[in-house]
């Protein structure tokens, strides 16, 4: 698709970002920002809460959509994303354990531990896939969901014993209402990782065509898979640590983009990134508006919108996906 369309999409994202900046609990209008009395107060809100929140939305949406795409390339299955592969549950378990044993650890350390767990969990998932003989399209996510269920149950049990259920819930349900300056910056790491993925777009696309195909073209398949896994694990861990999991995003966005423009990641990744950011922004705006002045957590909205879109995809795209 031509650059013109990409530009149009970027403008749409910008408009959504502006809307996202201007709505919310405390009063913040352009007029307030410009008036001498309230100006300073409004600017404070903007800097401490609104801008961080909007940035966090964009960064997390982008990274999650890209992570989903990478998972789908690595497993060659369109129904896989961090929340259907045990990745999210593993990251939460890791975070839980580090919270228990080293509550004082810095957020970076916590994130790295969570990423380590996410990596191990996802690698285990790939391992199981290799052992499961008949891989129909749907067994793959089923295996992932079951694995996630087991890991999640362990995490739940531990959290219950140590009275951390609330934290666990926060990690697994995306919520941006608590985002403030100083609490979201980790997401820039996730964003940097998606840029890294873009640099490796050709290798990831090739890996998506299968081991034999990639090897024939001289690709070191295993190292590309490892690279992809590390990115997915780190992105998931950062998102779990900062804002909580955004379900379905990594499933819906890559599938829609794939239908529209194919799987050559050098071409599709910018679109996946933008659609991811756009969808999160829209869901967040909806969550803040429908029940004003209260907020519905974005995880809930995404769950509804995402599962509806996903069902639609399942029904519409079945002949292609099967």
């Amino acid at each position, binding site marked *: 698709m031509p650059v013109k369309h990409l530009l149009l999409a970027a403008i749409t994202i910008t408009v959504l970002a502006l809307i996202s900046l201007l709505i919310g609990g405390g009063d913040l209008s352009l007029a307030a920002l410009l008036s001498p009395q309230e100006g300073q107060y409004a600017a404070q809100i903007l800097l401490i809460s609104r801008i961080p929140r909007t940035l966090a939305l964009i960064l997390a949406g982008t990274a999650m959509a890209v992570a989903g795409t990478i998972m789908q390339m690595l497993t060659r299955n369109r129904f896989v994303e961090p929340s259907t592969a045990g990745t999210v549950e593993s990251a939460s378990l890791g975070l839980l354990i580090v919270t228990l044993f080293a509550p004082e650890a810095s957020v970076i350390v916590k994130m790295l531990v969570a990423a380590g767990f996410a990596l191990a969990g996802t690698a285990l998932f790939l391992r199981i896939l290799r052992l499961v003989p008949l891989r129909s399209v749907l067994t793959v996510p089923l295996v992932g969901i079951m694995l996630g269920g087991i890991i999640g149950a362990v995490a739940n049990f531990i959290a219950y014993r140590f009275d951390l259920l609330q934290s666990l819930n926060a990690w697994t349900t995306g919520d941006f209402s608590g985002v403030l300056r100083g609490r979201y910056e980790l997401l820039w790491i996730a964003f940097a990782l998606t840029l890294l993925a873009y640099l490796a777009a050709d290798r990831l696309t*090739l890996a*998506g065509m*299968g081991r034999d195909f990639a090897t024939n073209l001289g690709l070191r398949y295993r190292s590309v898979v490892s690279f992809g896994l590390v990115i997915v694990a780190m992105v998931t861990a950062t998102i779990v640590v900062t804002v909580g999991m955004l379900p379905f995003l990594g499933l819906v966005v890559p599938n829609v983009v794939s239908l529209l423009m194919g799987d050559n990641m050098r071409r599709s990744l910018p679109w996946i990134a933008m659609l991811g950011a756009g969808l999160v922004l829209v869901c967040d705006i909806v969550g803040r508006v429908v029940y004003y002045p209260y907020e519905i957590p974005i995880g809930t909205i995404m769950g509804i919108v995402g599962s509806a879109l996903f069902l639609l995809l399942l029904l519409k795209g079945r002949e292609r996906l099967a």
Partner: protein
Amino acid sequence: MIEISNIRKAYADTIVVRDVSLQIPRRGITSIIGSNGAGKSTLLSMISRLTPMTAGTVTVDGLDVTKTPSDVLAKRLSILRQDYRIGSRLTVRDLVEFGRYPYSKGRLTAEDRSQADKAIGFLGLEALADRFLDELSGGQRQRAYVAMVLCQDTDYVLFDEPLNNLDMRHAVGMMKLLRQAADNLEKTIVLVLHDINFASCYSDYIVAMRDGVLIRHGSPDEIMTREAIREVYDMDVDIRDIDGRRIAVYYT
């Protein structure tokens, strides 16, 4: 030259390729024939390092395929497998251009693009170049894969059943194209073929396998005999000389 010495492949206790040794000379077409399950595909994927071998070695121009870095080998030898199932939605042009990956690593030069255009032209895919692979017919897709492998432009090219899904006209076109590549571009081509008459008419050597064992190899004239074919397929066929070619009449 491809030098295969004593290679073996075993899955658990079953040996599917049993101590095969063979030298495939440079330039020309070598066809491998044999019944289903004889081990032809396994042999080809071991030669091309896609399947690890249980024992033995394969060298290509002196390079051991299991030890040579994959990206070095990718510029010398390419393979088209029998049953690629690419789930990705790529256009024909994308796919063919990926054939240049060993050279370009994703940064296509003008030279790479013109190679891709040439390959697309050779296979008559111009009109389909911007279509997605999953929206093509089986034979069109097969031609796109062949175009990709040709675009890889290696001295050694292995094709596992390249005539899969092709109609009569395209099958003959494909064999002529491969013959040209061998004669004019000095390629070394190894094919797995089920239609022994194509093997007879277009190859320089024929290799016959049965139950994992290489049982015969020689010129088409040597293999296209009643006894040899009976030994390979357990089937009595009439071999006739038609216009100086040996043709098996096996339809009835």
